C-alpha cells in the first residue's frame, strides 16, 4: 500500500489571498499578519490540540506559534507554501514546549517514545464504551498519539516525522500501527 495521500485539510493552495500578506507581514505589516492568522489559526490550533489534548494549553501554544512565526517571518523564503512552513513550525513549537516543560514530569508519565513498549491508554475505557475518533485519539499514549496525528491526520511521511521526533522511521511505523490498533479497540470496532 502506498503512503497516505496528503489530506485535503493539509494541502495549501498555491494562490490564495494570503500570498501578498506573507510579503507584507514579512515587511512588518501587522494587519497583514493578522489576516494570515485568521487564515491559518484553525489548522494550527487543530494540530496543537491533537498533539497535547488540552485545549487551553493548545490555545497558548497556538499563540506561541504565531508569535514565533512573526519573529521568524523574515526567514521564510517562499520555497514552500506559507501554510506548510507554518505547520512545520507548529510541530516544532509543540515538541519543544513539551520538552522544556515536561522534563521532570515526563519521568512519571507515558513518555515511552521509541522504547517499543506498549503502554495503556492514558484514559482507559470501560468495556462496552464507544467514543468518537477525536475522543479516542486523546486516549492514546503520547508517542502513539503524536505519530498518529502527524501521519494519519496531518499527512506527514514517516521520514519527516522521524526527523521531527528524533527517532527512526521504523519506530514511527511501529507507533503508528500501535496507535491504530489501540484506536480500533477504543472504538470497539
Amino acid at each position: 500500500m502506498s503512503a497516505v495521500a496528503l489530506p485535503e485539510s493539509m494541502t495549501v493552495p498555491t494562490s490564495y489571498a494570503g500570498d501578498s500578506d506573507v510579503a507584507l507581514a514579512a515587511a512588518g505589516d501587522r494587519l497583514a499578519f493578522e489576516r494570515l492568522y485568521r487564515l491559518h489559526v484553525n489548522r494550527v490550533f487543530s494540530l496543537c490540540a491533537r498533539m497535547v489534548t488540552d485545549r487551553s494549553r493548545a490555545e497558548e501554544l497556538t499563540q506561541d506559534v504565531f508569535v514565533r512565526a512573526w519573529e521568524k517571518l523574515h526567514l521564510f523564503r517562499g520555497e514552500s507554501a506559507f501554510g506548510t512552513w507554518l505547520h512545520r513550525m507548529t510541530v516544532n513549537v509543540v515538541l519543544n514546549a513539551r520538552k522544556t516543560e515536561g522534563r521532570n514530569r515526563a519521568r512519571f508519565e507515558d513518555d515511552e517514545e521509541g522504547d517499543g513498549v506498549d503502554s495503556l491508554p492514558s484514559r482507559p475505557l470501560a468495556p462496552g464504551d464507544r467514543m468518537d475518533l477525536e475522543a479516542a485519539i486523546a486516549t492514546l499514549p503520547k508517542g502513539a498519539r503524536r505519530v498518529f496525528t502527524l501521519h494519519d491526520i496531518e499527512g506527514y511521511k514517516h521520514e519527516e516525522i522521524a526527523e521531527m521526533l528524533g527517532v527512526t522511521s521504523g519506530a514511527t511505523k511501529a507507533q503508528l500501527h500501535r496507535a491504530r490498533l489501540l484506536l480500533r479497540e477504543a472504538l470497539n470496532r
Partner: protein
Amino acid sequence: MTIYMPLDCDGFAAELADYLEGDAPDAVRAAMETHAAVCADCRQLLEDIGTIRDEAAALPTLTPSRDLWAGIADRIEAPVIPFEKKRSTIVVRRTWMRPAVAAAALVVFTAGITYGVTKKYFDNPASTPPALPGVVATGPSRAPDSVVPPAASAGTSNPTVAIAGPSVPSAPTPNTERRSPTPSGESAPPAGAYLANDGERVIDETRPMYDREIDKLRQIVKARRTQLDPKTITVLEQSIAVIDSAIAQSRRALKADPASGYLAKELNQSLEKKVELLRTAAMLPART
C-alpha cells in the same frame, strides 16, 4: 523473518504493519490478501484500520474557544526600547530627586525661619516672637549658609528671609546679606551639592538638618513654656508625641529597608511636620 505460506491469523497480524505501510514484499502482500479473503476476523481488522485511517484524514479542523489574536498582538506589538535598563535607572534617580530637592529646599526654608525666630527671641527674650516671616526666593537652589537673617529688615512687622542660590551673585543689598557659617555655627554643604548628588544622599543629608532645626525650636519652646497657656502646652506635647511616634516608626522601617524611597519620604514628611509644629509654638503670642 520466516514467512509461512499460506498465512494464518498470527502471521497476518505480524505482517499487517508492513502491509499497511506498503513495505511488505509482493509475495507477502498476496498471501495477506488471500488470508483476508477467507478469514472474516482478519478482513474485519483490515477494514477497521482502513476506516480509522480514512476518518482521521477527514477529521475537521478545530476552532479555539476564543479569539487568540489579542494575546498575539500584545506580544508582537510590545515596543522594543533600547537601553531600557539604563533609562529606568535615570527615571528612578529623577523620581528620587524630586522629593530630595523639595526636602532640601524645605530645610533651608525652615532653617531661615528658625534663625529668624531664634535671633529675635534671644535678642529680646521677653518679646513675643514675630509673625510668620515671608520668604523671597532669588535663586533656584538654597542652602542654610545663604539665609539672610531678618535683622536686615528689623523694625518691620513682617520681616523677610531672602534666600539666594550660590549661582546668584551675592552682592549685598539692603535686604540681603550672606552669612557663613550657618546660624548654629556649623558649616552646611554648599547648595550646589544637593543638586549634584543623587536623590538618596540628598534626603539622607537633610535629616540631620531637620534634627538641628528641631533642637533649636525645642529650646525656644522650652524657654517660652512659662509664657504659654498650659492647655496649649498639653496639646502641643500630645501632638509632638504623635509625630515622634511616626518618626520613630519611619526610622525603624527605614533601617530595615534603607533603599525604600517611600519610607524616606514618610520620615522626611514627619520631620517636616514636627518642625512646623514647633515653629508655630515658638511664635505663639505670650499668655495674657
